């Protein structure tokens, strides 16, 4: 056995289980030159209690898109920073209560969409105890259509106070966007939806013919047929 092979075997044998799983998923899917750096980022995140799945996903994405090793490492490193920041924000607004991986991932996604940390703080404080993901995406949807952060947060918090919860908050943003598409100004669109609350329309049901065509995907670990 060569020294190199022995070193690999030693690394595999001594690495924590999560690290081994990550390595197994990344092997052959990302350039070999990126693997050591990715390993250390994923292991460090795992040690800190940060969700590692988004990091593995980012590395796989980079490999699938043919990105060079240093670009993949940089993207995964940036994702880790966003997750760290998201967790810190959630900790600061939930009086030290640990946030679940889904919450941390949702807040990191909102940060990646351009939502400011201050907005995350104000929204999570206003809707304490509620899942932050849908409300953050609803606010991000509105900001993406040119609304100010204050106007967007105000509408979504108002909708939540009127009993709309979770994914229904996305319908509030969708109702505003629909008003814009009908040619109304932002102020008018906001006012109309404000008047509608809490009875904003739900998304249309999929046609039975469409539903009948839906098929399940094989588990991601299995290669597709």
């Amino acid at each position: 056995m060569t020294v190199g092979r022995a070193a690999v075997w030693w690394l595999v044998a001594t690495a924590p289980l999560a690290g081994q799983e990550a390595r197994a998923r990344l092997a052959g899917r990302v350039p070999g030159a990126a693997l050591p750096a990715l390993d250390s980022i994923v292991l460090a995140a795992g040690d800190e209690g940060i969700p590692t799945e988004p990091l593995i996903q980012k590395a796989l994405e980079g490999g699938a898109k043919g990105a060079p090793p240093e670009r993949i490492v940089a993207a995964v490193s940036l994702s880790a920073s966003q997750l760290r920041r998201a967790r810190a924000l959630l900790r600061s607004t939930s009086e030290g209560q640990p946030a679940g991986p889904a919450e941390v991932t949702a807040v990191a996604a909102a940060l990646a969409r351009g939502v400011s940390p201050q907005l995350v703080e104000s929204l999570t404080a206003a809707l304490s105890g509620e899942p932050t993901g849908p409300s953050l995406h609803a606010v991000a949807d509105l900001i993406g259509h040119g609304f100010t952060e204050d106007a967007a947060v105000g509408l979504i918090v108002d909708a939540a106070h009127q009993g709309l919860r979770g994914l229904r908050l996305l319908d509030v943003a969708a109702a505003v966007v629909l008003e814009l598409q009908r040619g109304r100004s932002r102020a008018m669109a906001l006012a109309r939806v404000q008047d509608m609350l809490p009875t904003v329309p739900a998304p249309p049901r999929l046609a039975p013919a469409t539903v009948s065509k839906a098929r399940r995907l094989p588990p991601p670990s299995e290669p597709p047929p």
Partner: protein
Amino acid sequence: MTRIDPLVHRVLDGELPSEVLTPAQRAELDRLERAGTLLADGPLTSVADRVMAEVRRPAPGVAQRLARWFAERHTITISVRPAWSLALAAVLAAIAIMPGRGPGLILSAEEGIAQFVGRFPGAKSVEVVGSFTDWRPGAVVLRDDDHDGVWRGVVVLPVGQHEYMFVVDGERWVTDPLAGRFVDDGFGRQNALLIVRPVPR
């Protein structure tokens, strides 16, 4: 009316012993004697008496008539033209083979349906690659059955947020312009952000 064999007749009248009969004639004798016994045991009412008794009997109620109707045998004749029966058979066969939400497509509360639509005229293949496929190509292949350049696909996905891109002709990564939500992918492009909701029940 069937004529009785003269020899059997004479035995019945007691003029001859039954031993003179052939086996066939003896069988006929037995049958006639049994019939005679039955007639002797039954009520000796006339046809008129029996008809009148039936007329005087109270009519059965609706429930009784219904019960009798369901219990009794009926001969039902349906006349159908062969053309119509063939058409009916074709319709039934179409319903039977029509794709539907089979047992494999019963969705849990943690699953939703995502419909992907992209316009790529002239493309040879279009697929969706994203976090739900572990960024592995080949799992969600879209179709353009009518060759109008609009490619479609419908899949069951876990409820929650997913990132994806279209891959055209196996090599060109394209952001879904209709997604509505986008996020920088860290590789110089933008992923579409999909939020899958549970299917309303």
